[in-house]
Structure formats: structure tokens, C-alpha cells
């Protein structure tokens, strides 16, 4: 190869040299790890396809739930650069609100007999709607009272939301007690469905959650990309001052976005409360989940949230089952490993952009 030619056309060799050795080693390591995991999972799946399918579905449905919750979190951050540390508390609060309401509506019947649920469709939808609105409203009030006037002071806002999160959590505990309960899904929903091409059954509600998550994702995407509101949101993410200089009421946009984000936390809370349970430990759990999903996916990115939720949900589910027996309680390290892996090659998350 003549020197002129190699100088003129940067080929893969020179590109390789251009990348610092450290980063190269890092990327190589990450690739090796990912390949190893893929092979391990494939091997396990081949040995027991039934378990693989069920656990895979577990992971996907969990990912759906995580996405709904995290999408609200990332929306609020992406637009207003507010890290809403009270997000988990809002999730938990929605679950408890819905539970109270459902108990009142059904006279205590439904929540006590989920083998034979006596909840009509309304007995689930109404608590869902009310809880979402209530929690959205609380979020809105929080934003208007405490966050509106200190835009840009991110740390201070984070501290404020932490304080509010503590207070909400403590008051929820005081008023609702600590034992885990579960929301009853509507009667109209079957308990389980048969999976096609097999004799496996799978809980219907979990699949429903996955469908809702997909719908929410599409709706959010459509809103952001296709509506005027979404256009303003995108512009506001890029350049807040310019947007308000153009005469657009940016405060209204912020308020609406915060309301929407909080409502999504509420939606997650009701879905999770029906799919798993409503529990006073939820605030810590779902704050952590939101954080991890958004760290992996990148702040402010919806696609990132989807990918992050998928990664977390799958690692969570498969980790419980596919680790060697006797080590399953180390599954938390897998999640930590996932974080490290992503941050090593993409410090801002998969789709993150610098501030």
C-alpha cells in the first residue's frame, strides 16, 4: 500500500490507532463480558426452554413496568433538569391511594379475595384514574411551590425533592400502615393466558402491563415528535431561554411536563400494585429503579429509558434464575455490573447528551 494512499484514506488500522489504548481495552473488555453473558444465557436456555420463556417474559413485563415509571423521571429531568428524588414516593403513594379507593368501592371484598376477584372493571379503572390524577396534582403543587423559583440550581432542587420524598414516605407510613397488600385486577381480565405453541400459561395482567408500557412509549414518542407541545418541550430541552424569549409560556410547559411525569409515576404505582403488591418499601425500590434505568439509558432520552428498562428487567429476572445455585443472592452484583459496564463505555448513558 503506497504511503499516499494510506494517508489519504483513513482505514480501520489508523482508526484503531487513533483510539486511546485505555478506551480500546475497556471496549474490548465490555465486548468480552457481553459475549460471555450471551453464551451463558443461550446455553441455559437450550437446556430448559420452558423456563427460559417464562423467565424471559418475567423480564419483559418487569421492564414494561420499569419503563412506565422511569419515563416520567426522565421526562422531568430532560426538560427541567430536575432530579425528582420524590419519584419513588409518588409511585408508592399512588399505590396506596388506589388501594384505599378500591377497598372503599368494593366494600373490602376485592382486595381480600384475589383468587376469585370481585372487582368490576370500574373498580380498577376508577382508582387508577383518581390515583394518577391525585399524584400528578401533588407533583404539580410540589413544582409550583418549591421548584419553580430556583430553576438552574440543580443540587438545591434535588435536596428539596429528597426532603419532600422523606416527608411523603413518613406520612404514608403513618396513615396507611406497613403491611403489603395487593390491588385486585378487574374480573374481566383472565387470571392466566395460554401461550401459543406451548402448554405454558402466563399471568395475563403482566402481559397487560407490557402492552400498556408499549402504548405509553408510543404515545409519549408521538407527543414529543408530532405535537406542538412536544415541539416546545424539545426546544426547551435544547435552549430554555430562547424559548421563553420567543414569547412561549415556558412555565406552563414546565408545569404540564411535571404533572405528566408525576402521573406516569402514579400509573406505574397502580400497575405495580396490581401486578406485584403495594408496599412501604416501594419508594426506595422504585427510586433506585428509576435512577438505574436513566443512568443506563441517558438522561432525558425516551429511547434510552426503554433500553435501560429492558436491560434492568432482563438482568433482574435472569439473574435470579441463571446464576449458579447457591449464588443467587449475589444477583444484586449483576445489576451493579450492568451499571459499571455501561458507564465504562458511555459515561452519560447510552443515549445521553452532555448538559
Amino acid at each position, binding site marked *: 500500500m503506497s504511503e499516499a494512499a494510506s494517508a489519504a484514506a483513513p482505514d480501520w488500522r489508523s482508526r484503531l490507532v487513533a483510539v486511546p489504548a485505555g478506551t480500546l481495552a475497556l471496549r474490548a473488555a465490555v465486548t468480552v463480558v457481553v459475549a460471555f453473558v450471551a453464551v451463558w444465557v443461550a446455553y441455559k436456555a437450550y437446556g430448559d426452554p420452558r*423456563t427460559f420463556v*417464562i*423467565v424471559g417474559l*418475567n423480564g419483559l413485563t*418487569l421492564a414494561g413496568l420499569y419503563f412506565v415509571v422511569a419515563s416520567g423521571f426522565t421526562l422531568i429531568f430532560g426538560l427541567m433538569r430536575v432530579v425528582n428524588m420524590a419519584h419513588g414516593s409518588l409511585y408508592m403513594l399512588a399505590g396506596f391511594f388506589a388501594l384505599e379507593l378500591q377497598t372503599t368501592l368494593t366494600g*373490602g*371484598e376485592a*382486595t*381480600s*379475595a*384475589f*383468587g*376469585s376477584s370481585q372487582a368490576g372493571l370500574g373498580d380498577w379503572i376508577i382508582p387508577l384514574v383518581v390515583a394518577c390524577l391525585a399524584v400528578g396534582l401533588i407533583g404539580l403543587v410540589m413544582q409550583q411551590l418549591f421548584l419553580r423559583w430556583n430553576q438552574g440550581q440543580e443540587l438545591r432542587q434535588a435536596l428539596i425533592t429528597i426532603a419532600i420524598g422523606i416527608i411523603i414516605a413518613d406520612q404514608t*407510613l403513618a396513615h396507611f*400502615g*406497613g*403491611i*403489603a*397488600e*395487593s390491588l385486585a385486577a378487574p374480573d374481566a381480565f383472565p*387470571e*392466566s393466558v395460554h401461550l401459543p405453541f406451548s402448554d405454558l*400459561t*402466563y*399471568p395475563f*395482567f*403482566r402481559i397487560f402491563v407490557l402492552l400498556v408500557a408499549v402504548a405509553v412509549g408510543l404515545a409519549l414518542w408521538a407527543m414529543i415528535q408530532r405535537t406542538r407541545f412536544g415541539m416546545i418541550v424539545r426546544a426547551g430541552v435544547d435552549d430554555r431561554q430562547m424559548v421563553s424569549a420567543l414569547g412561549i409560556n415556558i412555565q406552563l410547559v414546565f408545569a404540564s411536563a411535571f404533572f405528566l411525569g408525576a402521573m406516569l409515576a402514579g400509573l406505574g404505582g397502580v400497575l405495580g400494585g396490581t401486578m*406485584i*403488591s403495594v*408496599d*412501604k*418499601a416501594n419508594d426506595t*425500590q422504585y427510586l433506585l429503579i428509576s435512577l438505574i434505568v436513566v443512568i443506563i439509558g441517558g438522561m432525558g432520552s425516551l429511547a434510552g429509558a426503554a433500553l435501560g428498562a429492558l436491560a434492568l428487567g432482563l438482568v*433482574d*429476572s435472569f439473574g*435470579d*434464575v441463571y446464576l449458579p445455585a447457591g449464588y*443467587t*443472592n449475589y*444477583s*444484586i452484583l449483576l445489576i451493579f455490573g450492568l451499571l459499571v459496564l455501561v458507564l465504562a463505555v458511555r459515561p452519560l448513558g447510552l443515549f445521553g447528551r452532555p448538559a
Partner: protein
Amino acid sequence: MRGTTEGRRARLWALLAVLVLVIGATVAACGGDDDGGDGEATPTTDTGGGTDGEATGEPIKIGVFANNEGAFAPFEGQTWGGAMLPLINRGATPVSGDPTDGVENATIAGHPIEIVYGGSDSTPDKAVEEARRLVEQEQVDILVGPLSGSEGIAVANYSKEQPGVTFVNGISGAQDTTLKVRSPNFFRFHNDGTQWTAGLGDYAYNELGWRNVVTIGDDYDFPYSQIAGFVAEFCSLGGNVTERLWPPLGEEDYSSYITQIPEDVDGFFMGVGGTGTVAFVKQYGQLRGNLADKIMGGIFMTDPVILEELGDQVVGVVTAGMTAGDSQEPAYLEYTSQIESAYPELAGTGSSVFFYGYYTAMEAIAQALEQVEGDLSDDHTALNDALANLELDAPLGTIRLDENRQAIMDNFLQQIVEDQTGDGVPDVQTLKTIPEVDQTFAGAFSPETPSPDRTNPPCEKGTPPPWTEQGGGG
């Protein structure tokens, strides 16, 4: 406008001095009294309770603490109801309908009783902090509590540092609290978590014909104790535990663990704890179908609050525990009517272990104090002796203590049946009384055996406990 610089400075110094003095005084006042300075904190000898012998009428301070935060906070009312009932039966009056407000005019053996409130959050750290506050700051003579398994071990360890205070367990059920820690002034007047499963292994092996069992329980002390009891009994008869699954504590998505349960196993024993029980039952129903013919439950299944949550899903499940809500014994019926008149809102919770555990604790204290006429001298020697040798006639049977101050009492094999009382909640029917269950399970457990954990006790054939068919029981 400006005074002289000297005058100004003087004023400012004065202001500063005053400020510092005020702060210092507040801090010192909150800090408690000057104790003459060489660190001889004396928690008990300067309270009443008859330091000099038979000073009748000296007030006795009893601290009571359960969980007011955390997963077991909803049971606080029951624990206090149980603790206050023996006092109410001796003439005290409840301050309000809420048992945690305590009682007035409580006396035992002529001594006025002062009740001090405490609460923790099911973690050992907070429990010990609270115990220390009650003992060292509030200077209680007797402490009733704690509630959760891990708390009990920590508080029992702490009790060794305070020989002048009598500690009586609330309802914390880890085995080690008495079997390993063996503190001379820590008493437990109820069965531990392991004893609560007595009879289940026998039933599984002999009645249901199970030979291969899988256990599933949350990964912490209390399920370890429960599953240990079942495994010890079931395996000693010749049964086999093929796998033990341990979902991490706090994990509420059990679907992946349920998937791992082999489909061809005879049955499984569920030691999942309070918060997880609900989620587990529901998810199992969705993934595998009806629980009832394949499952055996631990103590949480029969708690009235949980049962209300679980509903028809668990009808038919066999479980065991230290209380029998359907007992028709006169002593038990009298006990339940006492509860109704003292705390109407707690009617029907007499069979809850939270209520019963704290009840037996306070009743034992009351009877022992009556026996020694309130003599707390000499680091409570007389009282502790009386407690150690007490034969407590409790509503559900007699309770006496072994050499580690651990209760030996009856256990009840039970089954969840369809609602018969018409309140929409399934009921619990007692199948059989297992008499005089002791902590060692016929030698399976001793201070030298490893503590129950994820792999202990090992599944081995051995000496069947005396209450099993093979052991001579029936």
C-alpha cells in the same frame, strides 16, 4: 449614632458570652444530670422497686416496645393490647381505645406500675438503641419486647450488659435468642419460630405421604428458623428436602423463583414472611394454579390480617402455630371476652401471635411480681428466680421454661377452611394439639449445632421428636 468603640466591644462580648452560656446550658440540661463523674451509670438502683427491701408501694417501671415503624408496624396495637390486658385484669384502666396510650392506675402486688412507651423499626440497631434509651435514660426496671427476630437476638445480647434489669421477650421468634445467647436475665414465654412448625413434618410425611419437598422462604433469620423446624422433623422421619429456595428479602417478584420449583415434587413448605406471603400466593396462583394441595405454610398464614388478604386462595392449606383461634376451652373463652371488654376494636385478635406473645410476657411478669411481692432487690434475684420457675396457666395451655429460659408449650396443627363465621374471611380449624414442644426437637438443636441458615440443619434421618407418630406421639 456610634458609641465609643470600647463600649461597643464590651457590649458585643457580653452578647456573645450570653449566647454561648444559653446554648451551653440548654445542651447540658438536655444531657441529663451530673452523675458525679466516673461513669457508673446505674440504671436501676436509684429508681423505686424496693432497693432496700420490702418498701411496699414503691413504683415499678415497666417499658414496653414493639415496632412502630417498618413492616410490622400495623401490629403494634395488638402487641400493646396483649401487654396491657394483664394489667387491666388487675384493675388498671385503659387511657383510650388505643392500647399504645397505655393504662392508668396499674398496680401489681400493691406496687404502682408505670408504663413507658418505646418503639423500633424491626432492625437490630434501632431496637438496641431503643432498649438502651428505655433502660439507661428512662430507667425501667423491666423491659418487655422486642418484636422481630433479629431484634430479639440483639436485645438479648444487650441484656447481658444490664444484669439489674429483667428482660422479657415480646414476640421475637429467632431460635438463637435463647438457645445460643442464653442471657441469665432474658426470658421468653412463648415458643420460638422453629417450635411453631412442630407437627408439620409429621403431617406431611405420615398423613399426606410426601417424600420429596421443596422449601421456599425469605432470606433472613425468621424463615430460617421456621424452615429449620420443618426440615428437622420431616427429614428425621425419612423425608427428603430436594431444594431450598431463598428469594432475597425485599424481593417481591417471586415469579422467577416459582418457576424454579420442580413440577414433580410432592409438596412444598412456604416460609415466606409477612409482606411476601401475599405476593407469593398470588403469583403462584397465576403461574401454577391452586396452592392448596401442594403447600404447607408457616406461621404467617394464619394471622387474621394476612388471611383477610389471602382469601379463598389458601383454603385447604395446612399450617401450624402456637395459638388456636377456635379453641373452646373456658380459659380461652374468658380471655377473648376480656379482650372484647378492654379493647373492643381488638376483639377477635386474641389468637394473633403478636397479641398472645406480649400477653404471656406481661402475665408472667405480673404473676412473678406477685409471688415475690415486688421485691427487686439484689439485681432482681428473687424476681428472676420466680420467672424461671413459673408455671404459667395461659389461656391456651400451660407454659413453663427450660434451662435457657425458653418456653415449652403446646403447638397447634391447623388447617385453613372456608369461611364459617360469615365475615368473608376463611377460618382456621385446629386439627391437633402438639403437646409440650421444646426448643431442641429431641436433640436436633442444641447450643452446639449451627444456627439455622440457608443450609442448616442438614436433611438427615435421625431421632424423630416425641410428638410424631414414629416418635411415640399420635
